[in-house]
């Protein structure tokens, strides 16, 4: 579905939300987030070139949250997501699989992986596909470590490890490649982003491009940026993966979601991540 047909095809059910246009009246922009008094986070900046004319500014989801939720992310001790990072660190240093290796055997410390979160999903030449951080972890487990039962894509262990890798990349500028061999996957992601799903006939763009800042029930819609993932959601009282969030969104349109880890969600993750090119890695962020 093209952007043009989408704009003409808003169903009556969503007019209340869709007719309004962006509304930042209730949103306090211009504040800055510094984590632990040292990691500077870019929470609003100019959009990547392909979104010029769509957004004047791209905003991290942090901007749309209340003072209390914002504050929880400013200090690692206050951020419950860091509990899962610690569990990830323990697993990082624990041998798994027939080779008797831990993540640390090859990567020494998580900090050696500090550029990963900012550049994933990315094209993997060896496998001829775009890989997410989770897929990369699975690749290590199955192809190098001899792990018989690798982490489930959305398992607690996987989210812990992904949160660890995000945490060491905090403050780095999101810069996922969308051209070259990744272009085809990116284009699929873009198509999915603008496709209306479910009985509600809602695309990602309906809420997160055209209505960010507006209320959906009593909640402020964000731009749907994923720079803060895996993110600690107060609702779940746990860290949540990008694909889990995508699934929730499509389910809420009363549609049939793609599977977590599916090629469609990988493509959507690449596309949505690229919409945040210029923001900082923030995971594990704290969201409602």
């Amino acid at each position: 579905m093209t952007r043009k047909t989408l704009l003409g095809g808003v169903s009556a059910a969503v007019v209340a939300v869709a007719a309004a246009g962006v509304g930042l009246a209730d949103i306090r922009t211009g504040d800055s987030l510094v984590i632990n008094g040292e990691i500077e986070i870019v929470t609003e900046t100019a959009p990547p070139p392909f979104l010029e004319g769509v957004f004047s500014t791209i905003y991290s989801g942090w901007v749309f949250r209340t003072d209390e939720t914002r504050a929880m992310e400013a200090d690692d001790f206050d951020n419950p997501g860091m509990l899962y990072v610690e569990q990830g660190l323990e697993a990082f240093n624990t041998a798994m699989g027939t080779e008797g290796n831990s993540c640390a055997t090859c990567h020494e410390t998580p900090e050696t992986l500090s550029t990963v979160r900012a550049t994933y999903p990315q094209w993997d030449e060896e496998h001829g596909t775009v890989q997410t951080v989770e897929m990369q972890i699975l690749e290590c487990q199955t192809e190098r470590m001899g792990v018989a039962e690798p982490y489930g894509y959305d398992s607690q262990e996987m989210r812990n490890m992904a949160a660890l890798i995000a945490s060491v990349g905090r403050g780095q500028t999101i810069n996922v490649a969308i051209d070259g061999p990744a272009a085809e996957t990116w284009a699929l992601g873009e198509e999915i982003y603008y496709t209306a799903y479910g009985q509600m006939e809602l695309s990602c763009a309906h809420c997160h491009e055209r209505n960010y800042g507006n209320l959906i029930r009593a909640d402020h819609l964000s731009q749907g940026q994923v720079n803060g993932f895996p993110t600690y959601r107060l609702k779940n009282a746990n860290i949540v993966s990008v694909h889990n969030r995508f699934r929730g969104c499509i389910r809420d349109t009363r549609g049939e979601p793609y599977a977590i880890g599916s090629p469609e969600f990988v493509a959507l993750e690449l596309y949505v991540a690229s919409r945040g090119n210029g923001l900082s890695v923030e995971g594990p962020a704290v969201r409602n």
Partner: protein
Amino acid sequence: MAENVTPRVRVPRDATAGEAVSVRTLISHPMESGQRRGSDGNLIPRQIINRFTCEFNGEMVIDITIDPAVSTNPYFQFDATVNESGTFQFTWYDDDGSVYTDTADIAVA
């Protein structure tokens, strides 16, 4: 005992005698309220941290009685008076009888 229960505490490394220092504690725990139902429709049995204490050199700083309305991963912040160098002793009591502990040292000049 609940899985992956990890206590975390933060106190300053040093202080002056008689100073009130800020203490923060967090423990990973589901705090299952006993009010929720599982996918089988049955109530999930309550399992919470029901008490937390902080002592310094054996003397009580704070003793907290906890009910199921305290959030998952219980968080507490409070102040402690330190008159001498010593050790904070933190104890969390689980419904199932498990006890989780942590300590932190502070140097008083």
